[in-house]
């Protein structure tokens, strides 16, 4: 029966330990309690003993490696035939190999050199070779430290300004409030436009089957498709009861499928309400009535839509409301 040798926890706050020296080589016969290797923490050097008897196999780390606690170091297999020697390095070779302390090297090595489960005769589940420690997720946010005043940092966060990018552009540190781009409007903003309702009213009066909300959904979808040059557009219709209905390509009879919502639409024309805002991430078009006009409000929340894009999109929608013929062209 194969047995795992893992990096032991030797102290309360110990996350890893360095392998000082291997006292056995792969293929050596080991007895219960035999010292296999020496590991060193910042406090002590300790011998790791064999907890089973058999043959040392599949050594995962060489001398000098800093191995996280709980990670597999090697195996003890039952028979000489089971011994895997395709290991990182034999102890004799390790003395010549420069110690690698890079954590990523360790992960790669363990993935490449991990003993295959085949040699073990139906090992019980708990003794199967554990998957190697997952490599740390790639860091997306730049870890670079930018020197900026507390207020500049706060404003940058509020406005969604990347201070690292500013520095890359050549701004000298420390960055102060005056250095922040003024044009940056941030992640949350809303634009409004007042549009004459004559054309839409005329269109609705001529057709009994045409629904105003769907008409706006069509305008929004058409504008989106044209502006962003995409094929499919999904509009989420938000009802006043809070219910949401997804409507794909409303301007093309609802054909096509699209999982992600492009934008949301709420129609407040039947109410006295004039606007709707939500903290939900996305783009929302709100239609309300104001005297003899429609009030179109496009609110953007963390959707990665730049100000010029939002302005262009709202202009495109407004043009269609004003002149529905545009929708057909």
């Amino acid at each position, binding site marked *: 029966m194969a047995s795992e040798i893992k990096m032991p926890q030797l102290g309360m706050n110990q996350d890893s330990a360095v392998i000082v020296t291997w006292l056995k080589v792969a293929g050596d016969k080991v007895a219960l309690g035999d010292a296999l290797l020496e590991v060193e923490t910042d406090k002590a050097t300790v011998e790791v003993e064999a907890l089973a008897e058999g043959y040392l196999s599949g050594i995962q780390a060489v001398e000098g490696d800093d191995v996280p606690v709980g990670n597999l170091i090697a195996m003890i297999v039952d028979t000489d035939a089971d011994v895997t020697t395709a290991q990182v390095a034999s102890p004799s070779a390790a003395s010549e190999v420069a110690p690698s302390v890079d954590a990523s090297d360790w992960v790669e090595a363990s993935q490449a050199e991990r003993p295959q489960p085949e040699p073990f005769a139906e090992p019980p589940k708990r003794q199967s070779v554990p998957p190697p420690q997952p490599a740390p997720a790639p860091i997306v946010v730049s870890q670079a430290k930018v020197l900026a*005043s507390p207020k500049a940092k*706060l404003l940058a966060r509020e406005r969604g300004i990347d201070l690292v990018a500013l520095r890359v552009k050549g701004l000298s540190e*420390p960055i102060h409030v005056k250095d922040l781009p003024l044009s940056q409007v941030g992640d949350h903003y809303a634009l409004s436009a007042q549009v004459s309702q004559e054309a839409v009213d005329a269109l609705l009066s001529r057709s009994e089957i045409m629904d105003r909300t769907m008409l706006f959904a069509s305008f929004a979808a058409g504008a989106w498709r044209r502006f962003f040059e995409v094929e499919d557009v999904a509009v989420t219709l938000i009802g006043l009861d809070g219910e949401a209905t997804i409507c794909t390509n409303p301007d093309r009879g609802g054909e096509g499928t699209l999982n992600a919502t492009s934008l949301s639409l709420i129609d407040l024309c039947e109410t006295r309400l004039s606007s709707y805002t939500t903290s939900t991430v996305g783009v929302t078009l709100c239609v309300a009535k104001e005297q003899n006009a429609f009030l179109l409000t496009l609110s953007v929340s963390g959707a990665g839509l730049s100000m010029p894009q939002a302005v262009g999109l709202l202009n495109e929608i407004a043009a269609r409301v004003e002149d529905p013929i545009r929708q057909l062209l």
Partner: protein
Amino acid sequence: MRQITLSQAVNEAIAEEMRRDPTIFLIGEDVAEAGTPFKVTAGLVEEFGTERVIDTPISEPGFMGMAVGAAMTGSRPIVDLMFGDFLFLIMDQLCNQAAKAHYMSGGKLNVPLVLRTNLGATRRSAAQHSQSLHALVAHVPGLKVALPSSAYEAKGLLKTAIRDNNPVVFIEDKLMYQDKASVPEEEYLIPFGQANIVREGRDVTLVATSSMRQVCEKAADLLSEDGISAEIIDPRTIVPLDETTILSSVKKTSRAIVVDEGHQSYGVAAEIASIISEKAFYHLDAPVIRMGAMDVPVPFSPVLEDLTVPTPELVAQNARKIVFGEMIHGL
């Protein structure tokens, strides 16, 4: 409105309060006929007599101890300590006795005492008569500390101090005794713990105590030539301290310089700067700057003495640095 000197304002405040309350008496060196070296108490002995305006031997611990005892037993003494530097002589009477009697007696004793003294260098009085030691007393719980920055403040704050049932250390700027300000004829009191916005501004807050108010006003004039708008806050009392006014000003301007004439290290400027850093941190666009007297005994040489205190030019220079973002620390 009439203009009177700080000296006259203090004199008026004492006289008006002594007329109002017969338990008030004045005690100190040369307070009677001589009217103090600064002529602050001139004329009071003529009106109130030597029973209430008491000249003492040259023994600060002696008359301070007598005054603390008198305050505990129903009188309201105003003690005149000729120079702020002599605070070191009366530390036990002031800090161990007066400041703690109310607490140690379980609230049975009050010490309604005012200790009037002064601060300020550049009077060519050398190291033992030029110190600004208000940080020493501000550090001791149980003492209130008022720092008038003009004749108007002096009169209003001193009347409040005299009516307070706790020991108050009232520290005047000895260079300001002849400076005039508009002071109303009619009675007024300035409450403790209420800072004064001396001048409104946009770009930087100058917190200025006592003598440093004038320095900061001149600095603000210099800065306005560069298009920098400075706001000046005079805390008026450093114990109690009006944190709200200071913090709301800094939140508006995002920058602060605290200017105080005490030695810069471990001083009042440091305390206020620390409060700003702790409570307005995310509003700051620049490090908070402390400006105080150089950490040296005040030199007798006029040339050297003038170098030891904050000047309008130095304040303006620091303000420019933080407004233009040139002040870089820790790089």
